[in-house]
């Protein structure tokens, strides 16, 4: 995949030398970003107003993915100096908050959606 993209870029730009790994990664990230933007718009396009609140709540839970960042940061602090300890504390708080975002978000969304039920089989007179 990487080679493919690099090759594509070389072919289109006519540049002979291969891109550095770092440049390839950044370019790929920008590809991913742009495609995700279109996907995000496309996925929301046809949603009925009824579901706007659960949808907002659901996307709210998904951006809890930021907890990964907090985990990776906390996991990357190896030292034990005062400075590192302060960073650890901040990163730890970030993990807690991110985790709350994930769990709270999904639980709240699930509770909202639990409420959506089809009309009971025993229809009421006058109901359409």
């Amino acid at each position: 995949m990487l080679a493919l993209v690099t090759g594509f870029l070389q072919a289109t730009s006519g540049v002979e030398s291969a891109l550095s790994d770092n440049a390839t990664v950044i370019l790929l990230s920008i590809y991913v970003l742009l495609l995700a933007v279109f996907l995000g718009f496309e996925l929301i396009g046809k949603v009925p107003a009824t579901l706007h609140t659960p949808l907002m709540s659901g996307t709210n839970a998904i951006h809890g993915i930021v907890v990964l960042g907090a985990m990776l940061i906390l996991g990357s602090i190896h030292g034990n100096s005062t400075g590192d300890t302060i960073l650890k504390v901040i990163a730890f708080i970030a993990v807690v908050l991110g985790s709350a975002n994930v769990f709270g978000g999904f639980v709240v969304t699930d509770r909202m959606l639990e409420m959506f039920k089809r009309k009971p089989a025993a229809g009421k007179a006058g109901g359409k």
Partner: protein
Amino acid sequence: MESFFESRVVWINLAYLVSAVCFIIGLKLLGSPATARKGNQIAAAGMAVAVIATLFMPGMANIVLILVGLAIGAVLASIPSRRVKMTAMPQMVAIFNGMGGATAALISLVEFEHKVGIARGEIISIVLGLIIGSISFSGSMVAFGKLQELISGRPIYYPSQRQINVVIGIAVLVLALVIILLGQTALTLPLLVILFLGALVLGVLTVLPIGGADMPVVIAVLNSMTGVAAALTGFVLNNQALIIAGILVGASGAFLTLLMARAMNRSVSNVLFGAWGAHAAGGGAGGAADAAEALPMREVTAEDAAVPLAYAEKVVIVPGYGLAVAQAQHAVRELAESLQDRGVDVRYAIHPVAGRMPGHMNVLLAEANVPYDELYEMEQINDDFANTDVAIVVGANDVTNPAARDDPNSPIYGMPILNVDQAKQIYVLKRGRGAGFAGIENMLFHNPKTAMLFGDAKDSLSKLTTAVREA
């Protein structure tokens, strides 16, 4: 290539790909009432995959600390989310959104201090992530305060508001630019902390002047911003899962914001910044409210109201936030059933921003087992009010205010409303005589066709139901 599948990092990234696919499928399924719950569960499963995979990242230190942090967050969030009433859901979304924003901001702070030899591109991502995350955090907390009514739902003004906000906004941008140009130096951390605080203040000041009725749009904007902040941290950490999920939320959140603003016939910038210049208009509305105190309101008892209801052909129920506050969603269904038993055609008219978030009413009525084919959206039902015998407004206010249609001086002028005033007869169930959440007097209540039934909505509805069954 032989070593491709032998590298642990490759497997972890493949797991991230799985979770990204889960998010996409989950979002897709969230778009239809029948599959929405499954969609949320699939997205949650994707999240679990991503979190577990991250634990196996090579060279991870402090694993125990990470697990403890995850557990604390899970417990802290799960308990209130399971217990909170359906009416309080919007503020829960606001608070969790704020936590996500804070996480992104804190990651940026630590990353800048911790990482050695940061490239300029990364500095831009870090600084932007810090600003956006902080605004999202403090803005969400204000939105939470307003929805929880810890802070007045009315727009809050102070002298030279617009100028002060613009100055702080510019100061934040200039500081950001300075940090980016300076790069990583000894001065950076204090500057970043100042930037952090400045962005927090900016978030508070931006949301404070926005009226409570506009909070849904504000939360949608902040939700989208947190997504973008998450994606920015993904760029710094070189993590595709963060980039994909963050941008998915950023884009879908932005689109959702547009849909909501369109439902209120306003531009997003008008919602966010309109209030800054609306001080004079707000004062004018206050004056109008004083004048309206003197206008007559006709009161009616449940027994008297029940007769025209029982013999009506078509009844439309207009639920609003008051219904939610009074936990009256079951009572309203019982009234509807008592009418349906007599052959009355009963429908519910749902304004897109009824309650405190779009779709909030649908959630509440669904909780009370109201079938969703009895719920009609504004465009579907608005022309039908003229043929409606009785409209019952339960705790809805601003979304029925004809001033939005008729009075160019009204702060809500231009917002599409339910044409309740065109019904042949109108009953308004209302707790007291005060103005609505947005603090605007409603001329519908003074309409000669309108009769007011004051009291707790649940109580009034059960009295109506009893009276209808006896009529």
